[in-house]
């Protein structure tokens, strides 16, 4: 790790990168943003913006469960709960005649309320409020390793899932008639999003995590003319905004996650007139 730091000092001799916590934060941004840029494309194409929002909120319940069980780190409880929650929402969506947004809303409210009830008992919520906004400056080397593994696993799964997701986003029965396991594809994808969200939520925050998933893909759509361009540009926008937001937050002394999302939003609005009619 010292070699990485030394390389960063040599290649990027900027004032803002002088601190180790800023180096860690930059590395975290470079691992989190491509993850979200990638997953965001198909989240948007499969109309899952609301679903991923609900997943972000469910992190609160994940933490609460960890606290109740007395676990040292709430990472494990968040991950497990996130995956189970994602699968459960998808299952209910498939087996109910209710509209998807009603179902997702029910799940979302339940998990927020449950998380808040448990975590606010005895006025202790202040201890956990950092998860709402996130703090990328507190990333440790161990966290970076976890993010690197998440990115590698997700990218590998993405190679297998991308084509089936394009087909199911157009028409699930058609995809099925061509041998795509539409349901399995959807479950795998929702679980990937759950893992990405849970692994990043402490650094980006419950309130902003969904924006990081949706905005780069939405901005990329304004410009892209093919699936390949869509995906590459979405990753690029996410990464550039991630780094720019981090630098901005350093000089303006504000929340990094919020600055990143704000720049993503700016890119979206600036590219909006370029949309193909």
């Amino acid at each position, binding site marked *: 790790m010292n070699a990485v730091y030394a390389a960063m000092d040599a290649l990027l001799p900027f004032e803002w990168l002088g601190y180790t916590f800023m180096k860690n934060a930059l590395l975290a941004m470079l691992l989190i943003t491509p993850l979200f840029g990638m997953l965001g494309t198909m989240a948007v194409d499969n109309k899952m913006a609301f679903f991923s929002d609900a997943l972000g909120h469910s992190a609160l319940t994940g933490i609460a469960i960890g606290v109740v069980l007395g676990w040292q780190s709430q990472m494990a409880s968040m991950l497990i709960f996130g995956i189970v929650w994602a699968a459960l929402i998808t299952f209910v969506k498939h087996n109910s005649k209710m509209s998807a947004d009603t179902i997702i809303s029910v799940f979302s409210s339940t998990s927020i309320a449950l998380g808040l009830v448990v975590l606010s008992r005895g006025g202790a919520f202040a201890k956990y409020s950092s998860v709402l906004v996130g703090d990328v400056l507190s990333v440790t080397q161990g966290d970076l390793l976890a993010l690197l593994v998440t990115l590698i696993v997700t990218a590998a799964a993405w190679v297998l899932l*991308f084509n089936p997701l*394009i087909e199911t986003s157009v028409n699930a029965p058609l995809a099925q008639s061509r041998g795509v396991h539409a349901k399995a594809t959807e479950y795998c994808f929702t679980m990937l999003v759950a893992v990405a969200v849970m692994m990043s939520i402490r650094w980006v925050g419950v309130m902003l995590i969904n924006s990081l998933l949706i905005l780069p893909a939405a901005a990329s*759509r304004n410009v892209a003319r093919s699936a390949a361009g869509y995906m590459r540009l979405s990753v690029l926008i996410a990464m550039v905004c991630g780094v720019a937001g981090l630098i901005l937050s350093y000089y303006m002394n504000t929340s990094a996650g919020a600055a990143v999302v704000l720049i993503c939003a700016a890119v979206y609005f600036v590219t909006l007139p370029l949309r193909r009619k």
Partner: protein
Amino acid sequence: MTQKITPPTGHRHGADDEVCRQNAACKLCRIEVDGLSVAFGGQTLLKDVSLHIHCGELTALIGTNGAGKTTLLRALLGQVEYKGTVRHLTSDGLPAAAVRTGYVPQQLEFDRSSPVTVMDFMAGALSRRPVFLGVSKRTRAKVMEALTRTHCEKLENRALGALSGGELQRVLLALALTPQPDLLILDEPVSGVDQNGLETFYQTVDELKRKNHMAILLVSHDLDVVQRYADRVVLMQGRVIKQGSPEVVFDSPEFEQVFYARGGRA
């Protein structure tokens, strides 16, 4: 393997079977649906449906909304659970091996602002290589060949969501025909398609039927199209209430009952 086996049913389609035998490419000769029922959430959607679909023929399913036409298609695609039997048979009455089914779905409700192009969509379906890595030359050639078959090679780089109803249906037909299916299932492929597009579409389908001796199953609301292109018509209303040649079905009291009883003759 040359041993002659008498077809198990008493149904006679001697002439068709003869064509099947002569056509080496035709492994599948007919699909026999027997006593097919579908129930979902305590509701019976289809009851005791029996019909035969033959290669080299266009079989049209007609009926009002909610008559179970799409449900029957999805049962044949193996996408909904059903009771009863569906048998794929060769001209010798033996089970046909590895029957390929091509499917053109009902009007699609997808996100039309996605940048996914016709090439991306086709390549994604025909190749394992993830489309975001770019489309290989071989896949590109395969896609172009497929698109040319339904006269939409010029749509290659258009966004899928920007196509007109007719263009989209021709692209979907191109995909359904790659690789060449034994059974082609078309679900209301012309809703939202202009008159010209409709004519082109059915001429292509008709050509396929004659040249490739394919079995085609069509769901349509356009009775004029059905009358002109169908070889066999099945009138449905939760079950089969009349089937036969277009003339027989269109002149039947059942047809009158379903299409004209409520609103009076148009």
